[in-house]
């Protein structure tokens, strides 16, 4: 299996307001501050457009913009791979309420925002990029499922891929069925030929037997319930000092292994 390069990262989550901070938290230079609850602000979007974008999409796009800015690439040259286990739970809840209540009045805007590819849709609209994109789901393994698709784009099509993994806590009553206790969006720009020195080099393989991610100690138990948090052990290894093999849970009771070699 050939290697892909991690060019840049975007991140938004409790105590992880941006990649510069997250990187220092993951290397232990900064203490984790999970009580800090940053919100996406998206200065890249004109104000009227920012108002239209659902909250869930804002999380995904905030991370995506940060990763793109860190890569010195243009939006028009990267394919977006969006992956989420639960998608926009707020909208799903409101649609279910609407169609099972008496009037069955559905908001047309809410309906078109309910598609799983809303984030790539708004990404292309707001950046003007006509590049291809895809939206995926792999339940608890949604991060690994997205990573495999992104690696496929890089290796099979030599296309730089912007992987965005995002999940937010469900509202009630869905929250009782699916425990995601903290919000998180992570964006990773992967390519075969980095413009500048990459952060890390990854070789991704699938293997037999189950695996669960080994979360670094600074990742809170609440954050670890978010499927996107599977990116964190991989990022911690990528900014560490030595090469290591990072196990991730994949679907079907199998494991993904990412052989990680830091480049900086």
């Amino acid at each position: 299996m050939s290697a892909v390069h991690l060019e840049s990262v975007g991140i938004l989550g409790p105590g992880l307001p941006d990649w510069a901070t997250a990187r220092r938290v993951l290397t232990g230079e900064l203490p984790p501050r999970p009580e800090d609850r940053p919100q996406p602000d998206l200065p890249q979007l004109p104000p009227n457009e920012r108002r239209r974008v659902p909250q869930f999409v804002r999380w995904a796009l905030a991370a995506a913009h940060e990763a793109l800015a860190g890569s010195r690439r243009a939006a028009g040259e990267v394919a977006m791979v969006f992956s989420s286990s639960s998608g926009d739970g707020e909208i799903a809840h409101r649609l279910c309420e609407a169609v099972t209540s008496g009037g069955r009045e559905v908001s047309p805007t809410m309906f078109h925002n309910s598609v799983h590819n809303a984030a790539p849709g708004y990404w292309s609209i707001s950046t003007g990029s006509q590049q291809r994109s895809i939206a995926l789901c792999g339940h608890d393994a949604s991060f690994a499922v997205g990573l495999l698709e992104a690696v496929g784009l890089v290796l099979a099509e030599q296309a730089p891929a912007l992987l965005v993994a995002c999940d937010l806590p469900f509202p009630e009553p869905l929250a009782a069925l699916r425990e995601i206790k903290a919000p998180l969006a992570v964006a990773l720009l992967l390519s075969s030929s980095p413009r500048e020195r990459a952060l890390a080099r990854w070789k991704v393989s699938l293997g037999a037997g189950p695996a669960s991610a080994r979360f670094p100690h600074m990742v809170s138990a609440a954050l670890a319930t978010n499927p996107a948090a599977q990116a964190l052990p991989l990022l911690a290894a990528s900014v560490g000092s030595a090469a290591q093999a990072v196990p991730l849970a994949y679907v079907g009771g199998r494991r993904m292994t990412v052989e990680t070699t830091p480049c900086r």
Partner: protein
Amino acid sequence: MRPLFVTHYATANPLGLGRGATLAGLRERRGGLRPMDLDGVALDTWIGRVSGVEDEPVVPRLAEFDCRNNRLAQLGLRQDGFEAALAQARARYGPERIAVLIGTSTSGMEHCERAYRQRDPASGALPGWFKERYSFNLFSVADFVQRYLELSGPAAVVSTACSSSAKVFASAARMIEAGYADAAVVGGVDSLCLTTLYGFDSLDLLSGEACRPCDAARDGISIGEAAGFALLERHGRAPGGVALVGYGESSDAFHMSSPDPSGDGAYAAMRFALQRAGIAPHEVHYVNMHGTGTPANDRIEDRAIFRLFGASVPCSSTKGWTGHTLGAAGIVEAIICALCLEANLIPGSLNLDRVDPAFESHVAAAPETRNLRYVLSNSFGFGGSNCSLLFGRLA
């Protein structure tokens, strides 16, 4: 790209169960749409319903997955000898070397709607029988199919609205090319639910009759449900086998639910598919349009097709037969393309009285038998997600 042969395929769609029923419906010009007859739905529209989907629960070993969408998936998997073909493929490649990539827009949403109707009046809690992972979560259908077929390779749900089960072909091609699988089961499953029916109604996109793609008087879509699956392999079973020879993907970058009037995104997806195959436009013998039957979609698609193919290549939409099966539309129309390639049939159009006089491309109204070498299938979705698949019969 290196071609990927469509060695086996199966479908359950509004035209009936299996390839035979589907081809017969096309040939006999017998549509699968009917006036709305779902319990308690008072919308003045037509739907494409799969008969029998309510009757057969999923197999006991996967009972926790039981919901309309996974029943429909199972019904599709049981057609056309697909299970037996997969048993052979499993033995040949090993279960871990066959990917499962399934497109859906709503997965088990219908099951979730049932649960919402049974919320506890006091607490608002959902009923205990409702499990997020096995129905409502989008991945549920790929999880179900992978377990049903006893496979353990790469698996994912692709959910890009109405292009979902076209894009699974592109994802499968990448997965195989990158070395993560030797073969792939691609498919799409979407079942009727209140959310899509009332959602498209809120956008004023539902036709009051059976949809009439490309007709001057077309006025919207008819929503259908369907399941379809195909096994993609590097090698064909016999000369003349149908293969995926190209795919193209793009984004409109225009609007979440309205197609870009310029048609640039649709044009780019078609052009990329031809480029990837190294095929010139005149070598394409038929274009199966996305052709939903909305005024905007068909007008814009006509323009994009004319720009690439001129007026020489026949094109038509088969949604007059099946309705718009949303996340399953890509695979249903890929299967129709495979059937048409094998039968040398251009299916023409259904419910088409008068082709929109503003159209410039060659809309095939009537069926035609002629030697087909390459056919193109278009799928476009909300979020401006475009995908074109090019299929050919290879020596």
